[in-house]
């Protein structure tokens, strides 16, 4: 089932669901005909869309809203924080082309601080599925929650058969005593390939699909501390505020000693271009990741 099919099914089953977009219909092209007035396109107005979503939610609706990640998370940020967040309204943010997925657009369109700013809103839940299969199996629970949510939409076809989504839990795909790679969203696919290469080279490499960034699976970290020598976080996000920060906060707060290294976009916007080239340029395709991981592992 695709994202759009799931959304259509959900909206047809639950008349409280309304679909909104700030004139970004890529994910929901067929829905206007299916949903009639429950499809609301506000034009290129992310702020008004979020404010109106808050008003609709106050009346008992569950708005699933669509816009490009950068403009949804940043142009409309204060509306999300103030009108949705303070009231804790169930407005469901579907964030399109987050991270590397903005490929050739350039830094204006790069949402690589979105996890950081969204998890900073007290009532907000934050998710990043590894692919479309992962996305579609997560969404029913996310949309059923009474809280607002932010989902890094990822429509890539699955290259891994995922286990069922459990609320607030990560998916521990492989265990490995030498190093465990923690990643989320779009980076899962290349990390999975990189892991395979490293395994073939003789390393025992674990892999976790973090999926749920908030709530975060702290049990997983407690277990990792017992089973693996070091953790490497891999994310198409700035180093500040994303997965590396989430883990650092948890480890320090709980006095857990565990080697932790980040692979991220550090403190720079990425070089725009064709997706494969971008990832190679930043050493974040499978081959690049293998290089980076080998260097980090040999440091220990």
């Amino acid at each position, binding site marked *: 089932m695709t994202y759009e099919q799931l959304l259509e099914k959900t909206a047809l089953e639950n008349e409280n669901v309304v679909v909104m977009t700030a004139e970004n219909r890529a994910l929901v092209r067929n829905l206007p005909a299916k949903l009639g007035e429950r499809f609301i396109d506000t034009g290129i*107005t992310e*702020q008004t869309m979020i404010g109106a979503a808050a008003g609709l939610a106050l009346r008992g609706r569950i708005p699933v809203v669509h816009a490009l990640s950068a403009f949804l998370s940043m142009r409309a940020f204060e509306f999300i924080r103030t009108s949705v967040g303070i009231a804790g309204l169930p407005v469901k943010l579907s964030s399109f082309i987050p991270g590397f997925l903005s490929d050739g657009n350039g830094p204006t369109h790069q949402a690589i601080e979105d996890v950081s700013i969204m998890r900073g809103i007290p009532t907000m839940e934050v998710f990043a599925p590894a692919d479309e299969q992962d996305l579609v199996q997560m969404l029913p629970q996310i949309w059923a929650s009474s809280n607002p949510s932010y989902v890094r939409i990822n429509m890539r076809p699955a290259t891994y058969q995922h286990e069922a989504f459990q609320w607030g839990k990560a998916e521990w795909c492989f265990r490995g005593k030498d190093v465990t790679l923690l990643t989320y969203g779009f980076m899962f696919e290349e990390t999975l390939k990189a892991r395979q290469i490293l395994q073939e080279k003789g390393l025992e490499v674990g892999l976790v699909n973090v999926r749920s960034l908030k709530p975060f699976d702290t049990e997983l970290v407690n277990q990792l501390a017992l089973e693996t020598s070091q953790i490497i976080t891999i994310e198409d996000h700035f180093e500040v505020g994303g997965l590396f920060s989430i883990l650092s906060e948890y480890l320090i707060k709980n006095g857990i000693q565990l080697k932790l290294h980040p692979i991220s976009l550090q403190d720079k916007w990425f070089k725009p271009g064709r997706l494969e080239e971008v990832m190679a340029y930043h050493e974040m395709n499978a081959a690049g990741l293998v290089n980076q991981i080998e260097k980090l592992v040999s440091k220990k």
Partner: protein
Amino acid sequence: MNDKQQKSLEKMSLNIRERIIKMSTDGGCFLGASLSAVDILTYLYAEFLNLSKENLEDPNRDYLLLSKGHDVPALYGLFVELGWLEAARLDNHLSTNDSIYWHPNRSIPGVEFHAGSLGQLPSVALGIALDIQMRKGQNKVVCVLGDGELNEGSCWETFLVASAKKVNNLIYVVDRNQFQANMATEDLIPLESLDDKFKAFGLEVQRVNGHDFDQLHNAFQISKELKGPQVIICDTIRGKGLPSIEARADRWFCNFSKQEIFELISELHQDKMATITAETIVAR
């Protein structure tokens, strides 16, 4: 509107003004902007909106959203007059033991939404109006804006969308008191001709004296016949009722001494002009 109604509204407004003045000490409040909005809010709650203590949770009630937010002492004073809020709770203004502070919040029954960040509630009001329209409801949504608030681009973005969506149940009300914080609007970011700006954005426009209950009544009666989103611009006076602070750029946020409060209440009842020495606060 008959004489009796008029007298009753005047009495209510006067009582609310006195309650507001009493909140402008011990930490103070946005006195001028509250006083300019009193008559508008009094008219709306007492005469126009389908709202009562009994129907505050009813989905068929009318909605009033106070967008500028810092005029909330007027709303709380009104809630006391309506019997929705105990008078004694106003003494808790700024106490952490209660939830009565400079901007509205939903823990006070009757407050539909929290406000304070200017330019946020026009779109929230639009969302409520869209839902009512989808559900074929008859309820009205009124969103009260400050004139300074109209500097915010998000207001105009929402007016465009409201106009495109042809909502028939949404009325924006502008408390046109001519001041924003510490400046006259026309000296900083001129708004006139405000009527034309709203018309250009596709709204039905009426303009009235926001302290004249007859004019307010006529405009809101006419509003029932109009199609599409609308605005009623209410010309008002910041600090209305207290000549010693009326229409003064330097009387925005006021924190008076107990003696000054005593004198201002006397001034409100037209006994004697107050002597004000409290320092003017220009940032809050």
